[in-house]
């Protein structure tokens, strides 16, 4: 039976159910248990935003606190994965990828290839992304495209509680390194989630809404923004089809292309910086493979090419919203050759 739980609870439940099912699953990261010196059970933090809360108590010895040394503990997780465990390591903010990036892109991502398929690296790096939490330039970035660039990594960006649980279970069962990107503004958003375990396959986009006039491809938190825009546009007779890729590597290009072949128009919404981004990547794929279907120039709705500002008013301006998305849709629909 499905019941309504938050994105945070869905992630916690996925971890607990996989730890229950498979003794090789371990969890590690900064404050994931309770922090050095704390009694560690009742008052455990469960990570900076409480996602792993309660697991330390339920799975003694399998939830590890780590030092503030990402290079060391991400490396340890990668090594443990090659040695037979299925570690889920928490990189507190995606912004901290810089300090442990070698372990991810030049080690974990390469093992299967360099050892001729004889080695697998079933590690999951859970990490928080996105703007909106007033956390300033060093804790608000959307760096998914950097990981997506690298062959050998899978990159997952759930937009809702149901997807978060099913995609995390798939991530843990997957034999390749997975970057599991949790949008920090979605943790308290609830949705219907089955109590039972389930896995959502990678590379299977979700059609969130059907419509014949414009395809909106939106990622992470932007899916809900696109839904708000589509609801408003429907009242003026413009029907949007919203595609949520769910995983950006692999990317379900077939579903995106099929949708654009039906609608003839594409708007891509991603809050990341605009250059060399998921938005430009998706736009290029459609321009190359569905050029004949396009009836208007592809519209990109992204953050600007700046760091994420700390001032509330400027951060709000940075993030795409329903009005900006609706504006881009109107530009596409109103376009005349």
């Amino acid at each position, binding site marked *: 039976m499905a019941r309504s739980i938050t994105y945070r609870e869905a992630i916690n439940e996925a971890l607990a159910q996989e730890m229950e099912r498979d003794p090789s699953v371990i969890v590690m990261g900064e404050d994931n248990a309770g922090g050095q010196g704390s009694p560690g059970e009742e008052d455990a933090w469960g990570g900076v935003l409480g996602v792993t809360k309660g697991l330390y108590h339920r799975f003694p010895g399998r939830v590890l606190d780590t030092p503030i040394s990402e290079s060391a503990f991400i490396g340890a997780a990668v090594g443990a994965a090659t040695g037979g465990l299925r570690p889920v390591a928490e990189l507190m903010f995606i912004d901290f990828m810089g300090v442990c990036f070698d372990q991810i892109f030049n080690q974990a991502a390469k093992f299967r290839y360099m050892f001729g398929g004889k080695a697998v690296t079933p590690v999951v790096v859970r990490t928080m992304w996105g703007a909106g939490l007033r956390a300033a330039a060093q804790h608000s970035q959307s760096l998914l495209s950097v990981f997506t660039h690298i062959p050998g990594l899978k990159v997952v960006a759930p937009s809702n509680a149901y997807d978060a649980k099913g995609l995390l279970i798939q991530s843990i069962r997957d034999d390749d390194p997975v970057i599991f990107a949790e949008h920090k503004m979605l943790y308290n958003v609830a949705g219907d989630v089955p109590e039972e375990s389930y896995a959502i*396959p990678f590379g299977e986009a979700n059609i969130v809404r059907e419509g014949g006039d414009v395809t909106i491809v939106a990622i992470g938190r932007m899916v809900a923004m696109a839904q708000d825009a589509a609801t408003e546009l429907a009242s003026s007779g413009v029907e949007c089809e919203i595609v949520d890729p769910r995983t950006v590597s692999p990317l379900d290009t077939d579903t995106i292309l*099929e949708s654009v072949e039906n609608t003839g128009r594409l708007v891509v919404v991603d809050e990341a910086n605009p250059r060399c981004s998921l938005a430009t990547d998706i736009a290029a794929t459609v321009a190359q493979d569905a050029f004949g279907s396009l009836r208007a120039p592809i519209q990109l709705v992204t953050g600007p090419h700046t760091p994420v500002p700390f001032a509330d008013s400027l951060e709000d301006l940075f993030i795409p919203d329903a009005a900006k998305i609706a504006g881009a849709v109107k530009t596409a629909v109103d376009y005349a050759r």
Partner: protein
Amino acid sequence: MADERIQRVTMPKWGLSMKTGKIVEWFVAEGDTIAKGDDVVDIETDKIAGTLESPVGGLIRRIIAEPGADLPVGAVLAVVAPSEVADVDVDAVVEEAKAAIASGALEEDEGPQPQLVEVGGHTISYLTLGEGGEPVVLVHGFGGDKNSWLFVQQPLSEDRAVTVLDLPGHGASDKDVGDGSLDTLAGVVIGFLDALGIGRAHLVGHSLGGAVIAAAAKAAPDKVASLTLLAPAGYGEQADAEYLRGFAAATSRRELKPLLGRLFADESLVTRQLVDDLLRYKRLDGVDKALATVLDTLLTDADTQAIDTPALLEGVDVPVTVVWGESDRILPPPDGVGERVAAGHMLHMEAANDIVRHLR
């Protein structure tokens, strides 16, 4: 004082998950006199569109719900009252109905929730609506669940208890089907009746569920008041094995959606939500194995039907009704057997009102 002569046509609850419905088209107008059972309005849910038959008869005084309106279950759609009731009294009911919609109070009433019961080591999910009468139990088909009776259970439950259940491996029941044989599944249905304290019931089964209840009647005829088999498995050898095997194997929307079109005479009934709900079911741990196991009960290696339902029913002294959708592409209706309604394989969804009439 409530005037008992004033009756209300309300938004029905077609299935557990239905929270709102959208008014598509009215077939009647203010001033028309309708009989109970007349088609009054087409309503679209997020799963499928259906036609509401009026639960009441009389003169339509007001139609409140405009086409296009999305209204919660229980919202008053129209007011029926004899001409001698004063306009002011009818309008008072209209105002009250609009206030109820505006207040949001209707959305909070979740209605009856499904229950769990242990049956011979299986956890079975079920939902009973209505009370009294000789109970009716509805059994879904391969890959279906209790929600497939969304248009049938509520109207049928107006004057009797009607129970829907999820077979093992399906819906919210556990996903262990054992050997998946007809006898095993029939044993669960019989055990389910016992667990609920139902001595004797009218059994209604769709597709695989039809063969399951036939096997149940053979094993325990004294528990079965009647059998109604809707597009039942096990009549003739032909089946759309490509659909059955494809459904069991599909993991993506792009694989599943074209297959689901074959279930209906009108393929446009396959909504995004219907596909999504089935994918959510198919992703649950254990479902792939359950479906693969039950598939062996349905099909031979040569892709013909493995079940012989008429043989099961030989010597079973229970009234049997068989109904087919005339455009069934999954299990083609055999010549000369049973009645026909205008529908595909999912006749209990596509021609629900005809099926309700058959069952009354």
